[in-house]
């Protein structure tokens, strides 16, 4: 059921994540079923799919929170790294290998200030131990200053400079989302995994977020792996998309290809591919691939002509 989309342009680029045939089960439930995908250096790759498709499970497998029973994942986190196995590594080790992430249900440290949240991320690369902290040795103080200024830089980047000393838990929802991104960037990653960063934010915030994601990708040269339901956002920022449904990869390709893919349309409509094509042909105004009414993107808007590429 996997749609083979060809990317001649990207096949020669350096691979960040190389996922081969992973399967993840919880008891009797298969959350991810034989999924393979490659993520390339400096691209923005979006993972989409209906709720329960296994997107977050994929993220958790990539970051070592879950351990897939089958398959392999290799990672070359930062540019020039040699690929290393991911499965079986601890979460924090994978983070040190250059993978940072945010969470679907924001997981900040609510009782620390925004600045301190980011500093936690920045400081995982630092060396000063408890003894030098207790004695206040010069190199510890230098590190402390460096981490503070780096954290301020990142807060400025995400537009939270003025809220640096607020407790993270007291920030507004959208601000918390951005703070999570800043914290993730603090660990100086080569690739950042964003789990529904736009959930619960308003249209203005969404536009800012899209800019931020592009900025992270273009200016900071960080590859971005994105889970998102908001199709407008996805289509506007993603270089490439993969689609999951019921734990399986059903499509992979450029945004415009995915929009036309009948299997994807079917997955979102919950019908078979043929029916979906028929239905869409009958009702051209039908809105698909969106769960947020304010940002619905119809196939028409995207210029798709369904039915052309039935496998």
């Amino acid at each position: 059921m996997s749609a083979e989309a060809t990317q001649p342009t990207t096949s020669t680029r350096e691979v960040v994540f190389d996922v081969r045939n992973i399967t993840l089960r919880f008891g009797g439930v298969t959350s991810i079923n034989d999924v393979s995908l490659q993520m390339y250096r400096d691209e923005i790759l979006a993972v989409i799919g209906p709720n329960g498709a296994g997107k977050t499970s994929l993220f958790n497998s990539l970051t070592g929170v879950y351990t897939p029973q089958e398959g392999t994942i290799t990672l070359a986190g930062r540019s020039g790294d040699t690929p290393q196995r991911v499965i079986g590594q601890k979460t924090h080790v994978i983070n040190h290998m250059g993978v940072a992430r945010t969470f679907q249900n924001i997981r900040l440290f609510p009782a620390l200030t925004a600045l301190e949240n980011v500093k936690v991320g920045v400081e995982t690369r630092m060396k000063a131990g408890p003894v030098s902290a207790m004695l206040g040795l010069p190199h510890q103080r230098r590190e402390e200053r460096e981490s503070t200024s780096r954290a301020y830089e990142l807060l400025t980047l995400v537009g939270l400079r003025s809220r640096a000393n607020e407790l993270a838990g007291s920030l507004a929802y959208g601000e918390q989302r951005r703070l999570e991104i800043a914290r993730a960037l603090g660990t100086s990653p080569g690739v950042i995994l964003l789990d529904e960063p736009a959930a619960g934010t308003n249209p203005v915030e969404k536009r800012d977020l899209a800019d931020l994601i592009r900025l992270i990708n273009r200016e900071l040269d960080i590859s971005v792996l994105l889970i998102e339901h908001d199709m407008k956002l996805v289509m506007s920022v993603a270089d490439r998309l993969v689609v999951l449904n019921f734990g399986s990869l059903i499509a992979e390709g450029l945004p415009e290809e995915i929009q036309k893919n009948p299997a994807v349309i079917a997955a979102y409509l919950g019908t078979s591919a043929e029916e979906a094509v028929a239905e869409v042909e009958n009702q051209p105004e039908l809105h698909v691939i969106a769960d947020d009414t304010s940002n619905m993107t119809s196939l028409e808007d995207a210029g798709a002509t369904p039915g052309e590429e039935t496998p």
Partner: protein
Amino acid sequence: MSASIQRRPGERLRDNPLVGRALGCLALSFVLALMIGKQEGTQQDFGLAFREAILGPRIVWFLLIGVLVFLLLTFGPRVQPYVHRPGIRPLAIGGLTVVVAFSLLKWTDSTVVSDGKFSTLSEAASKTGQLAPLARTFFTPPLPWVLFVVAFAVAAAAIVLRKAALSWVGVALSVLVGLWAWYSHSLVVSLLGTPDHSTGALVALLGFLAIAAACAATALSAEESANTRGFVNRIFAWRPGMPLVAVALVLGVMAFAIATWFSPSNQNATLVDTASLFSSTGLAPLAKAYLSWLGYLLFVLSLALAAFAAYRRDPRLAWGAAVLGLVSLVLNLVALYSISALGAKSAFDGANGPWDNLGTGGWLASAAFLLLAGAGYVVATAGRERGTIARTQSDVLAGIGKIPGMSKALILLVVAGALFYPPMATPFWQKVLVSEIGIYVLLAIGLNVVVGWAGLLDLGFIAFYAIGSYTTAYFVGALPIQPPEWMRLSPLLCIPIAIVVCLIAGVSLGYPTLRLRGDYLAIVTLGFGEIIRIVAVNNPGNFTNGPKGAFGIPTPAIHLGPIHIDWGQSSLQYWYLLLVITGLVILAFNRLEQSRLGRAWAAIREDEIAAQATGVNTRNVKLLAFAIGASTSGVAGVFFASQIGYINPDNFVLNNSILVVAYVVFGGMGSLPGAMAGAAVLTWLPEFLKDQVPAEDRQMWIGAVILLMMIFRPAGLVPARRRTAELHGFDDASSAETSAVPAGEGMGGTK
């Protein structure tokens, strides 16, 4: 509230909140009756105490209390608008303080008055002819109580009726009554002639002053609801350092005008008397000058300089005041040393050496000079603070730290108290300060790292204390198995070794167990604590000497070139040693909390998964918390062993571990000042209760206090800034979602 009391139609009787409340209050009456009731039944008749407590006519009093509570709860809402009026809080505190002073505290140490409490003293004093009539009148029962009730009633009326004139009457009345009480008490003390450490009169004076403050507040403030923080804020914002000058003024006046400076057998010599006492002796000229004129001059000068500097906010003058205060402090101590050394040499009774036979005056003066120097420091550094945003550190007393100079002033007050209160205390309290309060404060600071900062529940903390103690006992050669001769150490040198041993013990316990979640970790650490204790009892390999334990552990001593310090039997010396150790630990830990490790601890406590994803090596970070906590406990163990001289397994029972956890949580988890305050209050309380309730009942009262504290203030005495967020939640729902996933209970924990 009142609406909920209305009975809705169709409601069953038992659902009526009034019924539940009435039953609750009835139960409260009975429990109180039992708690204050008779001691113990016999084995033949278990129910004896029970029957006597409940069935006698005394139950009526307790039922009345229950009815009172019921009425308060029911009609509380009607009183509500008044409760927030300015002045209510000081009035309540003041009233309570005076009642405590009049009914619980000692008013004299003299054995002439049996238990030294106010009622017995006033009974006796009112019949003593030698006493000045003014004092005798004051002590005539029930006049003091009548005066108190009148002052209280006037204050309450002033607050409720909002009559300024009445308020000022209240101020005058309260101040007068307070001073009268204090004056009468000092006459009694000078009549009895023995050194006096009682606190009753002073506390009563403070209580009356609080009532006066309540009246003043209601006269000066037209607001409907009190804003204590804003008020304090305004004072400190007006002139930082000025409050310290005010406290120093009070202390200095007490020291130089009234208090005893030198008190050998049955003499209570004030500064003037002391000066004349030593005028014809071979006292060093400097000390002589200090006693006769220099002391007064220094006090007035440094007070004036500090006040002026504070008023002008002039940093250069302020530094001058700081230096002058410190110089005066040194001179004051030199003078104290000279007179006490000379007194001891001329064989006044009871003096073993210098620093004996000194009254409270010299120490009060020391505190005053220290505070003046501190005021100078606060003023000098206040300018730098202005304009900065609230520091991101765990403020001393969450929130208050934002007020410029406030946290510094508080720290200075605590330091002054820690330095100069103990010499004024009775030997009993000195001992309590060292072997209860001090040690447990140190333990609580250590456990706070584990429980408060890293969020790991450790119920076996005393095990490390035991390990530290036994390590000391081994290396000083007090155990059956002796160390090689070259490894025998003096107790102070055992400190680094104990730190290392406890680090190793902490890591080897933590390494396999730290991946366990909260409650599992709790039981494992509890088991570890018991294992260590039972090993000590069972004495494998004759290492621990079984239940007898180790004895003859030498006292600590420092011989370093020309410096020879030997800690003998005096509790006071140990207190200062402990103060140094604790001070160093606090400084180090305070830095630690602001360091990356401190933040990493907070991170794993808040959300372990997120911390891992942010690259925090959770296992290492937890291990460090465990090891650092353990080594602090080990240091306390070394100190304990060498101070007390003998140890046995009974010192390290599980109960103590649990108590330390209770101290930390009671004080406010994750807050360094909180942990210290919790330990200090809960170790002080049983000793204080000694005079008030039967000794065996102390634990019961402690239990009740802990329970009430958790019900009414679960965040603890001094809540931590980093914790307050967790406890109170936030305005929007989003954060409730994030905090609904406790550390380790998210995705990973339930696999």
